[in-house]
């Protein structure tokens, strides 16, 4: 294999694929990126056996061929090469090493045979549809923060995507929860998604995907079965296994009878939460909201360092209520709200609270209160 290409193209593609590679691997080939030179392009592929990212970039191929080299090493080398330079990748005669040559720099990396590189066999997909990258990005951003990291409940370690009828319209809905909070976002279901199985996309796949959809205005092709999903974004293809589990019936978690409505300026509320929570260094400290008389009084008490309090004007007409929330969770939710106001629907100090953006009917958040 001998191929020459622009450093910037190589870097951009490597940046997309190398992140999939775990830093520590017990299987050596999983530390490597597969390089395949063919026609007028260089294809790169990396995998962790659950997730695979492939990207092709244009290159001048002098001699077609393929090999694998350590992914992070190659990425670090290319990253440090001067901007605007050209890079030549050349597999040596013996096939055991690959040279990286750019200007006066040259590196030699050990190769592992291309034949050993694992293939994430995708099988056949039952559904295929296209959507705007902005829409996909929106669904991910509004729900990702609520994904659980708890291994015991592995079925919560991802975002649950499914379609459902709502008001005579078919919606594509994304839900994530860690048991303390729940985030739900939806959009009009893209054509072709109807009848798709409910799937749980793992956290790592979600975060890789999120970086890829940063390029706006591209169409994403989604192909899925009940065990695998594939996203094609321009020259990047991401294929992932899905979490093999059943997502809990989240509908019954979303309260329907909460009748105490609180409307509050999103920004001043978020800033107030951030300010008063400064006093609590400890993770998971509660901020107490005393709601009533047209205002919310936020209080944080930290027996070790002191206390903080702040008042924020609010629209509220129901009976006064005191309720506590994890400060971080409140911030996570308020930062998702795009409009100027946040709407809280409360029942009592011990029941789940519903938070939404009056300007965005497609997103909904549920927070479990804390004892204060």
């Amino acid at each position, binding site marked *: 294999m001998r191929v020459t290409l622009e450093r910037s193209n190589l870097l951009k593609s490597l940046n997309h694929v190398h992140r999939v590679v775990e830093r520590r691997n017990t299987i050596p080939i999983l530390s490597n990126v597969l390089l395949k030179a063919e026609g007028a392009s260089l294809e790169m592929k990396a995998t962790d056996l659950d997730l695979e990212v492939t990207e092709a970039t244009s290159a001048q191929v002098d001699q077609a061929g393929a090999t694998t080299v350590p992914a992070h090493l190659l990425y670090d080398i290319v990253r440090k090469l001067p901007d605007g330079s050209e890079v030549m990748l050349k597999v040596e005669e013996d096939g055991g090493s690959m040279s990286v040559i750019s200007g006066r720099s040259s590196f030699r990396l050990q190769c592992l045979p291309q034949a050993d590189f694992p293939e994430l066999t995708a099988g056949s997909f039952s559904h295929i549809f296209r959507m705007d990258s902005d829409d996909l990005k929106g669904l991910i951003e509004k729900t990702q923060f609520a994904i*659980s*990291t*708890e*291994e*015991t*409940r592995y079925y*919560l370690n991802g975002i649950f995507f499914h379609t459902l009828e709502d008001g005579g319209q078919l919606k594509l809905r994304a839900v994530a*929860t*860690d*048991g*303390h*909070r*729940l985030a739900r976002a939806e959009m009009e279901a893209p054509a072709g998604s109807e009848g798709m199985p409910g799937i749980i996309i793992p956290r790592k796949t979600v975060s890789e995907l999120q970086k890829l959809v940063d390029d706006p205005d591209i169409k994403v092709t989604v192909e899925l079965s009940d065990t695998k999903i594939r996203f094609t974004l321009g020259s990047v293809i991401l294929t992932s296994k899905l979490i093999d589990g059943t997502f*809990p019936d*989240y509908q019954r*978690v979303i309260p329907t009878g909460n009748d105490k409505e609180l409307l509050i300026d999103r920004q001043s509320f978020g800033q107030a939460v951030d300010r008063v929570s400064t006093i609590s260094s400890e993770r*998971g400290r509660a901020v107490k909201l005393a709601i009533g008389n047209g205002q919310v009084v936020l209080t944080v008490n930290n027996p070790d360092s002191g206390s903080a309090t702040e008042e924020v004007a609010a629209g509220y007409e129901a009976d006064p209520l005191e309720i506590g929330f994890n400060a971080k969770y409140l911030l996570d939710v308020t930062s998702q709200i795009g409009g100027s106001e946040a709407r809280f629907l409360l029942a009592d100090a*011990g029941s*789940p609270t519903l938070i939404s953006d009056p300007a965005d009917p497609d997103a909904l958040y*549920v927070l*479990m209160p*804390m*004892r204060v």
Partner: protein
Amino acid sequence: MVVNDPEAGFCRDCLRLQRGPGRRCEACGSPRLLRHKELYRLAIAHIDCDAFYASVEKRDRPEVRDRPVIIGGGKRGVVSTACYIARIRGVKSAMPMFKALEACPDAVVIKPDMEKYARVGKEIRERMRALTPLVEPVSIDEAFLDLTGTERLHGAPPAIVLGRFVRSIETEMNLTVSVGLSYCKYLAKLASDLQKPRGFSVIGEEEATTFLADKPVGMIWGVGKALEERLRADGITRIGQLQTMDKGDLMARYHAMGERLWSLARGVDSRKVDPHHDMKSISAETTFNEDLSRLDDLAPVLRALSEKVSARLKAGSLAGRTVVLKLKTADFRARTRNRQLADPTRLADRIFATGLDLLKKEVDGTRFRLIGIGVADLGSPDRADPADLVDTGAAKRAKAEGAMDVLRAKFGGKAVETGYTFGKGSRGKPQRDQD
């Protein structure tokens, strides 16, 4: 308040203050006199019960009082405590039971009754707390006390308050303790070890460096086998050698530990007696009579151990965020598996569920001789086991567990059981316990 001359001291048996330099108590004739130049100025104590488990058993079973007693479990268990008679015959704690019985064939072996020891230990701790709020428990039968500033309250200096305490434990609880009195925790701990059992040793500020000089470096708090070996390789075996060394050199060579070596070698220990001192973890484990490999056999034991750990967390007002599963294979290989939880827990239900999940991955036909479960990353229970949006059954199970706790407190440990341990006899019940 009348305090006598510290050089004359007081009698540890009748607590009478002495006037002269006689070798026996001027009142009762006992030779157990306590004298020390700094006796009435020192306020940091370390109190350690003598052969605690064995002493409790001897107290409760007068028929074994004069016989060697070993507390430990099962034919494959190890010694957890040996009474002083057994110790003279060469029995040591952590010794395999068969070896202990070789050394001392006529020993009475008693299975540990942890609940009883915990109860007795708690009573002793309560009595300590009556002396000062600054009681830092080290283990079930051991604690540091800071009696600084209690002199007016008790109408006597710490040494005499401790003398009274020791007497009250002996006469009212029929148990003996050893006391170390000094000006810092490190030396108080060393002192309590000097003349066990029924000891009362004092190390003053003036004599600290001389006292330490000829002691082996292994006696420094924090110096384990590995570091001792490393120090030996560097030619350092006695604490005295460290006393002459430069702080910078020691820190360059042993980093953070170097500073500790430097200070402790000089008898400088700034650690406070901290009643809320963080315990690192709470765990329970058991060795089987026969190796087990099936999940069906291991799960009931795990359940029983989880309940034990949970009971201790609840008793200590603690909760932990990391569940640790420990296994030892038939060929003595240890396997430890950790899992961090999203929230701290103190519930047997969650500890067991997490442990079981970890255990399932290890059950592959391997034969195990030991299983243990623990909770680490301990903290206050305020934020433990919050209500969960998804797992609505969790709140119910937590309530059920609370009800079981109440019943057990009223009617005993076996009043209510889960199906896991019910009818399993000793299977589900650990035979031995070590923390």
